């Protein structure tokens, strides 16, 4: 009988386990604190399974190589932190425009600029959504524990392949550098999604055709389907266009292939919500503190619940509005100067009081701080 494989891992290492489970075979990256262990683990593990690791000259080159390898047929990934992510956003936009699946892990640290390389933060929440120029529909997922780093990275690959788009995994310094026991899933335990390949003859192949679910089959280079890929706005054949009647459908396709299927993407965890009058809304490391704070509050008789976001983008607007419909107050807790809270304000009914708890001094929010805020709000 196979014994369950358990490992004591850093969050950053757990991400690599999830990526490998999902079939990642190519990593290109550039060292940056606090994400470097992702690259180091890939450098050690990938050659063992015939995969490929390359340390590029910078983050721009890293994401470029990742897109090139994905186009050539390998599931590809890079990892970085805020400053490196800023350098990557142009080519993340390129991956989006060319509909190239890939995964970017962003282990968040304090900013702006070089900021706080060794300190925790969630201040890239909005960079991930709006960093790339032009209209852009982002997918971003966020674990809150080391075992979840495996699960969410795996899910990021599945979403990237399913929707042919770049997907960001949002970690933070504390999660990336925490060690916890991780159970490595057996093959077959979780679904692994692979991009749909064309089945038509090469001469009938339309590279960016409008399929019913708006995701076009994607061949790898060398498989006989020679086609043109460009970051310029293009028609269904992949050729540059300036025609309004072709620009509209292309940009709509990019958005709608994601926004028409948010049910497949959005993942939330709710606890003690049924009769909750006050609800903590958070993601990542903060959600662990929120869960503990809510449990302690329940013991003291307060009706408190939690909502944790595993999917940050697309923002779970409909779901949050429904889930909060019976509560009176919410507290949005995050490690920045208020990024997620604006989205919550946008989507919740006007009669719900929205409070915020923000910390941006490089330290985590503790359960006690959340309880103090709760007392103030109640």
């Amino acid at each position, binding site marked *: 009988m196979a014994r369950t494989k358990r490992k004591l891992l850093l969050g950053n290492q757990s991400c690599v386990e999830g990526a490998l489970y999902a079939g990642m075979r190519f990593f290109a990256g550039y060292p940056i604190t606090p994400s470097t262990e992702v690259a180091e683990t890939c450098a050690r593990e990938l050659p063992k399974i015939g995969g490929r690791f390359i340390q590029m000259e910078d983050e721009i080159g*890293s994401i470029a190589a990742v897109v090139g390898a994905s186009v050539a047929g390998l599931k590809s990934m890079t990892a970085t932190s805020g400053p490196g992510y800023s350098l990557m956003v142009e080519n993340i936009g390129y991956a989006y425009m060319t509909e190239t699946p890939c995964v970017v892990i962003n282990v968040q640290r304090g900013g702006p600029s070089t900021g706080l390389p060794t300190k925790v933060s969630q201040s890239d929440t909005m960079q991930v959504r709006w960093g790339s120029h032009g209209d852009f529909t982002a997918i971003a997922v966020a674990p809150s524990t080391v075992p979840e780093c495996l699960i969410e990275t795996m899910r990021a690959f599945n979403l990237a392949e399913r929707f042919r788009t770049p997907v960001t995994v949002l970690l933070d310094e504390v999660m990336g550098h925490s060690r916890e026991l991780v159970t490595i899933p057996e093959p077959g335990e979780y679904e692994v999604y692979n991009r749909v390949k064309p089945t038509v003859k090469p001469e009938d192949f339309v590279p960016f055709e409008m399929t019913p679910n708006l995701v076009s089959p994607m061949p790898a280079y060398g498989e006989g389907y020679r086609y*043109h890929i460009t970051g310029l706005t293009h028609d269904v054949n992949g050729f540059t266009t300036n025609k309004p009647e072709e620009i509209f459908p292309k940009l709509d396709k990019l958005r709608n292939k994601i926004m028409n299927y948010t049910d497949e993407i959005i993942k939330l965890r709710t606890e003690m919500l049924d009769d909750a009058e006050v609800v903590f809304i958070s993601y990542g490391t903060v959600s662990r503190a929120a869960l503990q704070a809510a449990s302690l509050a329940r013991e003291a008789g307060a009706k408190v619940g939690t909502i944790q976001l595993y999917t940050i983008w697309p923002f779970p607007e409909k779901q949050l509005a429904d889930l909060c419909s019976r509560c009176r107050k919410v507290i949005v807790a995050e490690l920045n100067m208020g990024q997620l809270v604006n989205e919550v304000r946008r989507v919740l009914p006007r009669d719900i009081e929205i409070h915020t708890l923000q910390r941006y001094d490089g330290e985590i929010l503790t359960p006690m701080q959340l309880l103090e805020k709760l007392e103030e709000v109640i």
Partner: protein
Amino acid sequence: MATLEKPKAGEKQRSDVILSYLRPRKKFPSVWCAGCGNGVVMSGLIRAIDRLGLSRDGVALVSGIGCSSRMPVYLDFNALHTTHGRALAFATGVKFAKPNMKVIVITGDGDALAIGGNHFIHACRRNIDITAVLINNYIYGMTGGQGSPTTPSNSFSTTTPYGNVEKHFEPCELAHAAGASFVGRTTVYHAPQMEKMLMDAIDHRGFSLVEVISNCHTYYGRLNRQGDATAMMKMFKERSVTTGKAKTMDEEELKNRILIGTLYKDEEKTEFCDEYQRIVDRVHGGK
């Protein structure tokens, strides 16, 4: 200088060969000005690939942004038109993922040496098996004639209206110093030499640079009073000196001349993907 074999009896006419490589669904004319050297390079590249007998599925053409970077759209290969300056980094991903694919990068002086300078020297340093065709016309053509890293000192562009105060890069020397194992220079006038050099470069296992001096008569030629496409081509003919001939000339005679031919070739230098495969075989071996 290498000589080309004459087409054998019964072999297709060259124009037919070239036409068969153009994308059937792509609308022509091209974006290039009449007389642009890019077309000469494109036909030279097609002939070189055809003569090497490469499978079209096994060739990836990667480019960045600029006039020359529009080339892959017209050609029936795996084509990747990427972001400005990053073609070599994208190409590194393609090549490393598919080491048996022939990866050719089409780039210009601004794309490769200004915004893409970092990727250029590091691709050379790795000696990854990519052929970079650097079409050097001394200027940014697509954006309308601004100075580039190869714009010679004192010459004119729309951003150096009083003459260029900067020094220029020599792409071939830069590539050699950075570690490229094949470096050659030719011009759009010397089409047969270009064809042979492209064949040698594509055939070479390691990073190869082919610098092609080309005419942007629309901007560089006009702003520097070098005349139309024909006049510029004639100038390339007159100013060029082969590497063989150059050995018989002194420094004074070589001033302002364009040295053409294979400048550097090292077949012993190990190639990046091969070296990585050795690691894979070692740690993955026997499994």
